[in-house]
């Protein structure tokens, strides 16, 4: 995990970065990257857990086409709740950890060598950052 953290470098790759303002980070800190694979990013100016979320979750739970987690939640909630996890305001760390460590539907279990407890705590912090206090 430490070695992986060393891969987090500053610049977004020109090949991947969507330069237009519509793709920039919103005030909410939600990544509007539609990219299939987000470049490794530095966490400066981003909420805690944003980097981990991009690296480990966004391929399924990001925005844009072909994100199966978001699509599945769209089918499940039918608009009652945001399909995009980053926009939820009602998630709890217990719930997030349950899904990550147990899987659900085609989402498999994630081991500690993939997402460490520390990373998972950070992801929980990110996904609960907009919960009512």
């Amino acid at each position, binding site marked *: 995990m430490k070695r992986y953290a060393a891969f987090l470098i500053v610049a977004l*790759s020109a090949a991947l*970065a969507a330069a237009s303002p519509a793709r920039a980070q919103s005030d909410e800190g939600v990544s509007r990257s539609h990219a299939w*694979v987000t470049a490794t990013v530095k966490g400066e100016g981003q909420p805690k857990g944003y980097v981990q979320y991009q690296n480990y979750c966004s*391929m399924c739970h990001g925005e*844009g086409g072909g994100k199966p987690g978001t699509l599945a939640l769209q089918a499940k909630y039918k608009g009652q709740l945001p399909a995009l996890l980053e926009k939820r305001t009602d998630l709890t760390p217990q719930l997030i950890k349950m899904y990550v460590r147990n899987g659900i539907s085609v989402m*498999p279990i994630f*081991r500690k*060598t993939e997402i460490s407890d520390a990373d998972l705590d950070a992801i929980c912090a990110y996904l609960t950052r907009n919960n009512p206090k």
Partner: protein
Amino acid sequence: MRVPPGVRPADFADAVKQFEAAIGKEWVFTADEDVDLYRDSYSPFWHEIEEPIPSGAVAPESAEQVQAVVKIANQHKIPLWTISTGKNLGYGGSAPLLGGSVVLDLKRMNRVIEVNDKNHYALVEPGVSYFDLYRHIKERGLKVWIDPPDPGWGSPVGNSLERGGGYTPMRDHFDCHCGMEVVLANGDLVRTGMGALPNAKTWQQYKYGFGPYVDGIFSQSNFGVVTKMGFWLFPEPDAFLTGIVSVPKHDDLHRLVEIFATLINSNTVQATTTVVSPLSFSRDPELVALRAKGSIADLEDYAARKNIGYWSVSLPFYGAPKVIAAQWEYARDLFAAAIPGARFQDGPSYRFPLDADQLAKITNPVPFGVPSLQTFSVGGPRSQGHMWFSPIIPMTGDAVLEAQQVFDQVHKDLGDPGGSGSASFPIWSFFARAFVIIYFFPIEHDVEKNRRNREIFRRLVKTSAERGWGEYRTHTAFMGDISDAYSFNNHALRRLHESIKDALDPNGILAAGKCGIWPKSMRQERA
């Protein structure tokens, strides 16, 4: 604490202490809540007593640590099961075949050691995912492509050792590897091919080195732990185009496949595609009724009226624009000369590199060397997981028709999952010269359904063997069944595998049971 089979608790406790000393306490997992994370999320035995649960897991971060772990395991006769990124879902995931094994989790070995975009190769560790390697390449602006399989979270090392495939001209992953580093069961470290020459300059450029070429024995096997692997990469092509060929009659299939085989075997078409019957997709009630009735003449008539082909294939071409245009023209000439009524359509075409907007609009970026997980959104949300039945069939019209018949029956036996009334017909050219069928079996957290589906799967293995079809890869649950099918000369191949196993791993600590290869001590029990 769970204990591996055949190991005394005191010996296991001792081994665990030694593992901890070798790689650090935090990377040795024995608590249930940590070890349960290694279950196969798509297990066909979920909740059943047969589901193989590990007794522990160890996660080294270097080849030296792997050597230490293997030596300790050998000393105590601890059965290990190696995973790379552990995402072999549909084929066993991160779980061992033998319950109670200790999983050797190589995810922390995630260094991209080198990517060279002048000679177009990479050298990586097992824990590197396709996502990792893609990021590495993009961030350095290197003009090479990787060849991802459908889900990008897997490992080039793990996937290639399983002999998986992708979509670009580098689609045969094992074929495209070049050089390995392997830790043997006795802890010895070997480099194959040119890697056996110290300071070799061509370890990732020339596959064979000198003397017997041993790389193959480490694929789909339990003869060693691969700790580094080289891969040839595709120089970023200039362009891509798809040419779609449709033919009107049922019997046109034979000439269609013959010409397709010529194009594939002459390297005119070098990528993965699928032969489909457009008539099997639609849920138009008229068509559903005609399919049920089974009259070929009626179906041909329907196809003509609706202006769709009876059979169709999309030919992918990668390369320089003038070259691929000429190759597509050549293909059209061949089909037109052989099949009256053959129709052609230009499909999507691109110039590379794609910009972010173009990439965002592509439904499936995997054939352009971009890893993703979009494959999980195909077919809509599912209740649980899947496993794959994947026989190799000849590249002939006869074989395709025979397969259609067999899988239509299986589809009925499975209760028509997806509700389309017919099999989805997955005939693919992942590997040169033969077709492979990648057939989807649903997995659910339902013991009765899983039991029934396992029986259908097993019957299918036997039926396929009778027809001369062997599977290219399978879930750990069926490795014994499929190994049994490869029985020429009283299972001579398995006896050869067992000889190698006994020589390289006499204590049988590596991946017991993988592809039907059991250590000597467990073989006697099974005799």
